[in-house]
């Protein structure tokens, strides 16, 4: 069999992969001069921008979704299917990942300027992660999904550990490695169960089987009459009731489907740091270099959510009765645990780590009430806005970390007097995360989620989220207030040396560019949230 490959469809990940190779080659053959470090960064940046250009071109092209790596119908499964589909959902998430990558690369250029991290390897690994993150939302079969997800995760262990001779960093890498491997194993188990029942790896085909619209192959007694009965059952029940009533027994699907669903959800829950698989977040974020922490909290998380949404909405809508309550409870626990843990933090990065766990809970919430697909739209909208504001906060934290090694919240006291622009940027991003004006992006993101929940009738989840919003506000505002407290007014608490240093724009142009990009996007979303909503409502 000869497959036709649509190279335009896979242009973005292909570009990134080629640039990854190029960076490695350049690093090997260019002389080790100080100028090479930023040059490699610029090459990486160019790769990301070219890939972004392809994504934009695909988006502008319009028309029907591009698809490639297709199996013709009747070859080995009825109906056939495509493994790689570029539709609206794919484009939004790929665009999100690549814009976030621009910010992360800019932050990396500053991080690498110190010289204790090998440059070529860093950018190579970074680009590999991006290949995975761009491929993942386009994946439409289970194998591709798992491979892409591993491609996102594996380079990140190495990136975390690249800060050599640093105990914390090594510990973080090992933790991340163990957690990730366990989660992959759990997910693979679930995936294999689903494949075993559905007899196909393609998500839409699985959806048909698990939703009772098509007969499960290889099941004893599966025949035309049974198929007819199940279709009849579905039509009698009506589409809206499908979610709650179609469980294994009714259509003769074995109960093990539920096990498979739960295992797959658990595997993704590890990736997005949802409770009870959240414990790794703070240590890993703190140990990793800050650009990697930003990458984990935005790109890696976006990839995890993309996979989760794809599996739940495309493959498992028929099993909604099994996963909706699980996701709802996970969401409530995640936001509560994240917020409560964040309140106790003194380190800026740890606080952001727990806050991003809490934000994961908010992103999960709409999935738990509206399995029909609008919920996924709200989740993606929140994810897009969250990415902008969280990256902005990380960029400023990165800037401050250059003068305050320990990077505790007290180091931010009086930042408004030393570096007003940085302080305003951070304040804006934190208020966005808290969801208060002037951070309208965060406010509207929360309203979108609340609307979805209230509309879906999950009042208890809305109340839990409301309380969590208030808890979250406590630590965001406490941090914001620190920025504007003059250092002189706190007497003995003045930290000697580092905190007093002026953070000059000249010293780290790349980070300032990163802050500029992230905050500009956040401001844009605040003024015109419709941009995001337009993109995400149709999914």
């Amino acid at each position, binding site marked *: 069999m000869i497959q036709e490959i649509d190279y335009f469809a896979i242009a973005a990940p292909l570009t990134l992969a080629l640039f990854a190779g190029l960076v490695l080659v350049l690093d090997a053959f260019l002389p080790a001069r100080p100028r090479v470090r930023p040059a490699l960064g610029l090459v990486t940046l160019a790769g990301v921008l070219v890939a972004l250009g392809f994504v934009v071109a695909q988006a502008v092209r319009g028309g029907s979704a591009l698809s490639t790596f297709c199996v013709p119908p009747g070859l080995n499964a009825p109906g056939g299917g495509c493994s790689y589909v570029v539709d609206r959902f794919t484009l939004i998430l790929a665009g999100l990942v690549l814009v976030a990558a621009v910010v992360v690369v800019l932050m990396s250029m500053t991080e690498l300027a110190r010289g204790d991290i090998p440059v070529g390897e860093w950018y190579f690994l970074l680009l590999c992660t991006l290949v995975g993150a761009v491929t993942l939302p386009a994946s439409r079969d289970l194998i591709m999904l798992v491979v892409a997800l591993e491609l996102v995760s594996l380079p990140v262990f190495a990136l975390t550990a690249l800060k050599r001779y640093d105990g914390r960093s090594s510990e973080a890498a090992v933790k991340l490695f163990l957690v990730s491997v366990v989660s992959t194993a759990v997910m693979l188990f679930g995936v294999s169960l689903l494949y075993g029942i559905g007899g196909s790896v393609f998500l839409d085909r699985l959806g048909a089987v698990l939703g009772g619209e098509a007969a499960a192959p290889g099941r004893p007694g599966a025949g035309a009459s049974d198929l007819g009965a199940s279709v009849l059952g579905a039509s009698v029940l009506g589409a809206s009731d499908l979610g709650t009533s179609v469980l294994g027994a009714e259509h003769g699907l074995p109960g093990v489907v539920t096990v498979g669903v739960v295992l797959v959800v658990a595997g993704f829950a590890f990736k997005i740091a949802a409770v009870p698989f959240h414990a790794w977040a703070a240590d890993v974020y703190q140990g990793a270099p800050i650009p990697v922490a930003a990458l984990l909290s935005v790109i890696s998380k976006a990839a995890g959510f993309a996979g989760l949404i794809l599996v739940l909405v495309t493959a498992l809508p028929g099993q909604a009765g099994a996963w909706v309550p699980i996701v709802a409870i996970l969401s409530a626990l995640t936001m509560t645990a994240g917020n409560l843990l964040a309140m106790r933090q003194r380190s800026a990065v740890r606080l952001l780590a727990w806050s991003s766990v809490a934000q994961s809970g908010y992103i999960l919430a709409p999935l738990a009430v509206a399995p029909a697909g609008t919920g996924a739209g709200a989740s993606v909208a929140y994810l897009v806005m969250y990415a902008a504001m969280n990256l902005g906060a990380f960029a400023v934290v990165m800037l401050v970390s250059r003068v305050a090694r320990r990077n505790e919240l007290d180091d931010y006291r009086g930042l408004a*007097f030393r570096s007003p622009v940085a302080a*305003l940027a951070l304040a804006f991003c934190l*208020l966005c995360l808290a969801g*208060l*004006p*002037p951070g*309208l992006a965060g*406010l*509207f993101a929360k*309203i*979108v989620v*609340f*609307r979805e929940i*209230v*509309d879906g009738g999950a*009042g208890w989840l*809305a*109340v839990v989220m*409301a*309380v969590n*919003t*208030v808890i979250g*506000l*406590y630590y965001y*505002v*406490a941090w914001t*207030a620190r920025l*504007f*407290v*003059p250092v*002189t*007014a706190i*007497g003995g608490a003045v930290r000697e040396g580092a905190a007093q240093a002026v953070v000059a724009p000249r010293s780290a142009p790349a980070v300032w560019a990163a802050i500029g990009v992230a905050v500009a996007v956040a401001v844009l979303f605040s003024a*015109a*949230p*419709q941009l995001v*909503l*337009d993109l995400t*409502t149709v999914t």
Partner: protein
Amino acid sequence: MGWVSVALIAVPLAGAVALLVAPGALRPVLRIYGPIVSGVTLVLAVVMLAAFDHGQAARPQFAVDQPWIPGLSLRFHLGVDGISLPLVVLTALLTFLCFAYLGWGGGRRPGQLLSARPGGARPRALVFTLLVLEVGMIGTFLALDLLLFFVFFEIVLVPMYFLIAVWGGEGRRRAAVKFILYTLLGSVIMLLGLLLVWAQTGTLDIVALGDAHGAGMPRAVQVLAFAAIGIGLAVKTPMWPLHTWLPDAHTEAPTVGSVLLAGVLLKMGTYGFARIAIPILPEGAVAVAPWLGALAVVGIVYGALACLAQRDLKRMIAYSSVGHMGFVLLGFATLTTVGINGALFANVAHGLITGLLFFVAGGIKDRYHTGDMPSLGGGMLATLPHLGAVLTFAAIASLGLPGLAGFWGEMLALLGAFQPGGGLPRGLFLTFMVIGGLGAVLTAAYFLVMLSRVTHGVPSVPAGPAVPAGAAVPTAPTVPAVPAGPGPAPVTTGAGGDAVVSGMGSDAVATGAGAGAGFDERAAAVSATAEVTGDAAGWETPDERPVQPLETQPEQARSPGRDDGSPAAGMLDVQRYELVAWVPLIVLTLLFGLWPKLLLSLTTPAVQNLLGALS
């Protein structure tokens, strides 16, 4: 004419943005910049008042209706009717008066936070904060879209937080955090209620929803939505038992913060009842009204009793706000034209009178460096006759003397309770009326007690007549001349008062030094002396205070303190910058007191419209 509505929001916003964009150019003119921007806003508000078609007071005028976020069906829909117009003008006026208070004359007096002083007064940030606050306040009253209302409702939180946390008193951090957490919890619950309304009706348009009078929403949903929205608004109002953030916030806020908090922010809560909760959810309102009324009268009595127990002037006024807002809520709970009219009238009157009271209390605190009533020592009418007179006027207006603005609103609210509408149980509301009437008597009692403590009586200390008024300006150059004894006297009283109130600062040395840092111009002198005398006096203050702390101080330490230390000698009577801010409030209080029809004619048609089927 829709541009007026937009301009009312755009002008302060543009003013704030300009401060952010061109800080250098505006720094020298900062003192007049705030008054100019808010003055333009006030002029716009007056234009609106003049051009308002009084014959059509029930309908929204100056309307603007543009789509903003179609994905959320959120429209940029602004407009005013008879209910919101007085509040818009009140907001513009109070903000302007606050700026005038801050910037008039040399701007060097203690209450005028715009002057440069060691430790960083950050005038630019203050002007910025107040302008953003104004955007949120005016926007709330103009918004005719549920989510837009919510957005503006939220905008005020952060500026007010910083106003308290940066420019506030000793316990400011705690008070500010309490304020923002409480009010955010309230507004998030309100958001859930608003979204519930949206989910049921599919529109966010307040005008359309108000005209529908709850059609299309089952009773159970209406009750639930009313409860959720009501809780959100009640936190802001504040209604007993959700009021506990208020006394702390008021006590710690700077003068202008207290004025705007009492004068405008509380009104946002009550306005929400008139604009959203009652017209959109009438059945919910009927179901919840008895509870609302009950909590309102509890608030009236509780506020009055709490006031009787207060020692701090600002805290007492804060609790009096709880009582006054109780009358407003009782008016709403009656669901009658009379009651709601009274509530809206009391709303505006409270904004004027309590704004004035907080201005005066701030002036007193700046002069005496304490708001503790026993420490003020009485006899203010003798020592500072004009200030004492204004305080007396404001207190009497607040207690509801007929002929002043405070009377009509409370009277009408109680009258509404005599014959409640909407099929509410009459006996219950008669009881509320009686209890509310008793509360009004208690209100008179605590204000009179306050006056007898502060303005009347013999001044406990001879006011330093030898010092000519002009020479004793307590600015930095005179400070080093303060002898060792007097400086700490006010400082330790302040610290002791704090210890009584908040249970903190048992270490006299530490609190003395902390207080010194607060009064920047005297910090140098105090830091040396506070450790000596602060130590000696500090040990006994917590126990001695309830008796009469000033008398326990050694005579020789006290009298020179009164002579050329800060309190008495530096105390000037009402200053020009204060007069500028206070006179309009006094005039309006008199005007509305003598001619209540001015306001009632505006609100009556709108109230009849909003009650719809209930009346």
